[in-house]
């Protein structure tokens, strides 16, 4: 069987003004898997992640060369970037719920993309919150402000919010780094469940987390991808010396 790739890059370079933040990245992320990005702080993990849904468009001094394909479509060709971002969801490091009700947080995306009927929206609210493992905790307070939720709940609400627009791909930038271990665990379990339906790319500083949840792992250093492969292989038998040093905790 030919493997299908959700995301593919070809000779991707990225500059912030004169500073080269990514150089010559060639990565192929298979469909319906979890891929972890690891590497020391400042190596360009977030930068690469934001390339995939063109969030870097918002940064004025950012220049990209090379190709990025999402499901074989060149995302720098003449496409609707808002539709791209609907199909490639994103969860950020710090939970950034909108200061609205829980329900409005979830329906923000679907309404943006034209869902109008209340029954449809209700269904989306239920399914997204359910899939994010949050339904039971918030079903009685859907119309209360989302700011009243705990940090872990807020982050799962952010995931629910991302799921509500039914993306194919979910980008997560250190989604658990601001959370306590129990909340982190819940999110890891959630990722595992979501894997059957979504392609997930997750940035993490936590090696154990990468080993626990990911199928593939990519190691970055100074803007270059030095290693990419199946997670077990990368952690048990890294080909790159620097990658080995990082994993075993000798620098970073």
């Amino acid at each position, binding site marked *: 069987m030919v493997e299908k790739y959700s995301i593919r890059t070809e000779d991707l370079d990225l500059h912030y003004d004169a500073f080269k933040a990514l150089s010559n990245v060639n990565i192929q992320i298979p469909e319906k898997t979890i891929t972890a990005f690891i590497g020391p702080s400042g190596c360009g993990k977030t930068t690469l992640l934001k390339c995939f849904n063109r969030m870097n468009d918002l940064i004025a001094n950012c220049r990209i060369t090379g190709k990025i394909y999402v499901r074989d479509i060149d*995302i720098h060709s*003449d496409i609707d970037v808002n*539709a791209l*971002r*609907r*199909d490639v969801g994103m969860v950020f490091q710090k939970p950034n719920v*909108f*200061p609205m009700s829980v329900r409005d947080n979830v329906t923000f995306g679907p309404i*943006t993309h034209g869902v109008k009927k209340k029954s449809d929206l209700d269904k989306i609210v239920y399914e997204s919150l359910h899939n994010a493992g949050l339904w039971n905790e918030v079903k009685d307070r859907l119309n209360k402000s989302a700011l009243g939720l705990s940090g872990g709940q807020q982050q799962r609400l952010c995931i629910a919010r991302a799921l509500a627009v039914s993306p194919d791909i979910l980008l997560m930038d250190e989604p658990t780094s601001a959370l306590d271990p129990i909340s982190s665990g819940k999110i890891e379990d959630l990722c595992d469940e979501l894997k059957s339906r979504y392609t997930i790319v997750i940035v993490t500083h936590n090696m154990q987390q990468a080993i626990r949840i990911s199928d593939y792992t990519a190691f970055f250093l100074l803007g270059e991808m030095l290693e990419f492969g199946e997670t077990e292989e990368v952690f048990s038998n890294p080909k790159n010396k620097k990658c080995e040093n990082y994993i075993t905790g000798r620098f970073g």
Partner: protein
Amino acid sequence: MHIQKKHTKEKFFKALFGATAILTILEVASIIVFMLYGAVPALQKIGFLNFIFGSEWNSSNYDTYTGPMEGLYGIMPMIVGSLFATAGAVLVGGTIGFFSAVFLAEFCPKKLKKVLSHSINLLSGIPSVVYGFFGMKVLLPLLGVFSENGDGAGILSVSLVLGIMITPTVTALSKTSIEAVDRSFFEGAVALGARKERAVFKVIIPAGKSGIFASLILGIGRAIGETMAVVMVAGNNPIFPSGIFASFRTLTTNIVLEMSYGGELQTGALIASGAVLTFFILATNICFGLIRNSGSRFKGKKSSLATLATSYTSTDFTEATKAEGLLDLQTTDGELQNSQTFNNNFLVTSKKTDKASLIGKHMGTVSTIIACVSLFSIIIFILVNGLPYITSELLFGEFSYAGTPSIASSIVSTLMVIVLGSVVAFPLGIAAAIFLAEYANKNGKMCKIIRLMSETLGGIPSIVYGLFGLLFFCNILKMGTSILAGGLTLSLMIVSTTIRGTEEALLMVNDSLREASYALGAGKFRTIRKVVIPNALPGIFATIILGISRMVSESAPVLFTMGASIKPMPTGFKSSGATLAVALYALGREWMHINESYATACVLIILVLILNIASAMIASKFTKRLTCTT
């Protein structure tokens, strides 16, 4: 997946917001064009040098641009008057304001500090006619005792009134810049063994001096542009001021005194003096901008110093600060050379009293007391004298030219002006701010030009808006003296503050919320409408309320465009009438209805205080909520 389509809606909204922003450029341009259009023919006739350096002003209503010229149009006495009045105001208000700021920022007990800071902020919104009125009714008779001719009007009374008027502004801004100084400076100095007051005066204040200067310059701008408070206490003879009790005019009061009955050439000359005034104010504003920029450069230096202060040993810090020319540690220095062991030395130093700094500290306490006593006594005096006379007859009574005055028509006129001004100014200002904060490239030329224009608009004195409104709305657009013309003039005046306030509110919205919205595929306009604006709403409300409060307080712009006397109840936007502030001016200048004047001043103060308190409360809730979000 269907990601192949494009939106044109986004472009439309960008263009729409951009267009409103460009209106600010248009506004500045038309004010400048109008100034030149009005001033140049008059200057040609009078002669530029005769106009600026002429020492006599004796205008004649019959002079035209063509015929022979009977009057004399030299504004030097007024320029000198303006400079003296401003210098006096800064001497009084700057000194009191600066030392009060030092006290509040550094020496004031915490609880007291909160109360005092809030009340001083509130008092900066008190309409200037109220200050003028108080000066006229209380200060002039008081000063008259010391004056040879028995009349208290003159430079001294103007300086006192303007000085007290600008004190809250100077205090609030200086306090902010003192508090913004890096605390490690203070710690560094105290670690060297300096006493607290020495650390404050020798280290903290020099480090915050750019901000303190800026606050003084802002005070200068307010004093030089002030009209109504001055006209009530200056005596108003168009001659060089010859002593502290000599009657004189400033550039602003000259305009307000003669404009309403000016002949052709006279009007032109008054517009030209408006141009001179604007030039002075823009020059001070440019200074303000330069100082602010040098302040930010200074900050860079500051942070490197701060690292020095924390990472070096105390000796090195002394050297470093000395090298930066910040510290004047002569005493320490002298003793350093006498002995080898530092610790003993600093103990010696700390026991020595630094007289200048100690005096400074006491000045702070005294100034704060003076500021509070004078500000509160103005308010309390007016409330005590006015509250008993706020009767239903005054507020709702039928208008009559002869009997006891009723301000019912003024209340209605004020409301109508507020509605009209709001409808025009707020949508425009908010849309322009959205463009600046959300769409424009922050470092782009366009954005810089618009911001410069908006700041220029903020600097133009209110009397010049009045001139512009009179000639443009009343005369050229044939609106006559009407509520319509007054409302439009006020709306032009508050556009710039609306832009600034809204922009600040928008920029306070956390970027992560914008990111989250974009990441869900929401477009720019939807993100702004659904995420950014709802979050900035309280800040925008606070801005709107402040704008309304300004429309209530200002009198110079509406004096020309709406009429200077209390009229019967307006029947529509075409009617003329006095706003409350103008009504106070009109009533206050006659001795006949003294009680009603006090009562009107009360109504005005209460209204403005309510608006300012509301604005402050909304703004502080807003800040709290935003800090919760992150």
